[in-house]
């Protein structure tokens, strides 16, 4: 199993450009998440999905959109990139939530710079 894969690894965008960060998992997990990590700020949840066709906002959703058409893929779309979106983006997945904790598995991250 490759686990959670993300592409690209690095990207530089100009202000106002758009892009899609790709995330794929091969563990047949229902739950998927997008986080951003800024220096000294920890991980902030952007969007999450509990299954194909179902998405919901996290703590910091403004400026982003997501879709979940399959169990495996959970792309994150940035429209009209702004310097405030410069960050490291992590995708994660987990098995069902249920009444116990299930480990979240993280991808290697995408480093995005908006200039």
């Amino acid at each position, binding site marked *: 199993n490759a686990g*959670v894969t993300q592409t690209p690894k690095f990207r530089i965008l100009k202000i106002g450009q758009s892009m899609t960060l790709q995330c794929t998992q091969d563990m047949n997990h229902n*739950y998927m*998440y997008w986080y951003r990590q800024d220096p*000294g*700020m*920890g*991980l*902030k*949840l952007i969007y*999450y999905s*509990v299954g194909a066709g179902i998405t*919901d906002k*996290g703590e910091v959703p403004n400026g982003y959109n997501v879709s979940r058409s399959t169990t495996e893929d959970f792309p994150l779309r940035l429209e009209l990139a702004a310097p405030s979106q410069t960050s490291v983006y*992590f995708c*994660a997945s*987990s098995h069902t*939530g*249920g*009444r*116990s*904790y*299930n*480990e*979240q598995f*993280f*991808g*290697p*991250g995408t480093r995005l710079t908006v200039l």
Partner: protein
Amino acid sequence: QKEVEQDPGPLSVPEGAIVSLNCTYSNSAFQYFMWYRQYSRKGPELLMYTYSSGNKEDGRFTAQVDKSSKYISLFIRDSQPSDSATYLCAMSPYYGGATNKLIFGTGTLLAVQP
């Protein structure tokens, strides 16, 4: 007040030292407590998790939860240079049919000097 507070460090210790990493939190609904380890330029990986109060040991690592004080700790015994990483605490409340959302601390950067 942040829901989860964590000393950012950096923390530098000699090889073999005992390391103590800590987080405090304000939300009494948190039931699950986790420690993630993140090596430089990598994604976080789960190190340990505990449910409710108490201790949990795994090799050189011990996780401790004190819900009455809203305080969690991770102890690393006989620290090694390979333990050098950022350690993130994370917490989750109990829900039926939970979405498994986590609240993360800001992370503590640990350097173990050989």
